[in-house]
């Protein structure tokens, strides 16, 4: 096999890496990863809580962790969880760090309670008791393709992160309302808007517990009282707190 390093399509990069086939493979993997994530994000909009999950929640083994995300683009209200189309991809993705990942976030599917609550920015996760770290990616119109890239773990690691505490026997938890801001950077070839996070605005957390209580009581009648446990901002350099899962408690 001969390797032509002086082929016109070859170029030298820093760190000793040469050639274009690495870039081609990286591109193909990025597209494949984006496709998988797009399918995942698309399926999420139809996902409803299953009977098994509902039983786990009623038994206190898992909790419904409700989060609201509010978004603006150039100061104007923007629906956070848009329905993906050919020209529009989701604006948000989430990563969740657990005991198993020692706090490092991994892409996690979020769910909606209904079409109406989706449009209002409400999502939920079902989590067992423990400590979790939620990484929030977005608002970004290329969040899917970025998360599907080879260096997606770095993308997740650098995203803003919050700590979520799920106590034992909790069933319904509201963790806060995130206020995010994006900036428009023109349009794509087929009309989709290019949105990137507005770096000048720190993501803040608001408490809308009354709204959250109304939503959870409507969808989880008889599951008991909602607890408001606002998630705490985690910054790089802060210790990562982990707690064993119930089945392998250290005590």
């Amino acid at each position, binding site marked *: 096999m001969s390797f032509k390093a002086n082929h016109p399509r070859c170029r030298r990069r820093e760190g000793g890496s040469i*050639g274009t086939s690495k870039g081609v493979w990286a591109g193909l993997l990025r597209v494949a990863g984006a496709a998988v994530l797009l399918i995942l994000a698309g399926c999420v909009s139809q996902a409803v809580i299953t009977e098994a999950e509902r039983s786990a929640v009623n038994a206190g083994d898992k909790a419904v962790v409700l989060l609201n995300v509010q978004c603006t683009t150039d100061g104007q209200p923007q629906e956070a969880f848009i329905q993906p189309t050919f020209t529009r991809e989701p604006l948000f993705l989430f990563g969740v760090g657990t*005991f198993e990942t020692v706090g490092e976030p991994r892409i996690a599917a979020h769910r909606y309670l209904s079409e109406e609550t989706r449009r209002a920015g409400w999502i939920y996760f079902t989590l067992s008791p423990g400590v979790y770290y939620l990484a929030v990616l977005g608002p970004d119109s290329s969040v899917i393709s970025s998360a599907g890239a080879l260096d997606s773990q770095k993308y997740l690691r650098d995203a803003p992160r919050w700590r979520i505490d799920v106590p034992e026997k909790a069933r319904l938890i509201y963790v806060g309302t995130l206020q995010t801001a994006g900036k428009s950077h023109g349009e794509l070839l087929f009309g989709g808007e290019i949105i990137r996070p507005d770096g000048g605005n720190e993501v803040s957390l608001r408490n809308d517990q009354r709204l959250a209580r109304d939503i959870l009581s409507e969808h989880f009648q008889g599951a008991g009282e909602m607890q408001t446990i606002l998630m705490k901002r985690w910054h790089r350099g802060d210790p990562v707190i982990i707690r064993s899962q119930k089945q392998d408690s250290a005590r």
Partner: protein
Amino acid sequence: MNSGAFALSFLSVMLLLESCILLPIPTEEDKILAGRPVTEAQLSFLVPKITTREEVVEHLGNPDIIWEDARVFIYNWEMRQGILFWAAGAYYSGGAGMKDITRHHLLLIQFDEQEKVQRFSRTTRPLAQSYADFLRGWLKGSPSQSEAGSHRME
């Protein structure tokens, strides 16, 4: 055919069929990839049953990870233990590069209910083992864990 010729032939066939080669080169652990190393000398202040949690933070800083229910502090750092050269080719083009091979170092300090040091280990985590499994094994005091400078309260 002797083993050297066989290995060369095997590698050549592999290269022809898969167009890919990986070559790990071990190096000295002289490059810090992440975190801040903790040396054995820095652990001289740790005395089981005597050193307190506050003293640990005072000497070593905040831990990277706190395993809350197990009362364990974990300090992480990563050193380069080798370089992996790779090359792949097909038809008229190809690529090559190199990547650091990491050794994961940890200092684990477990405290008792009075927040005094119960035991501590300066150790490495095998690449093939997940972090969570390693922690569970360490907590159980698994003899399969290789530990350099393990100290336990008698």
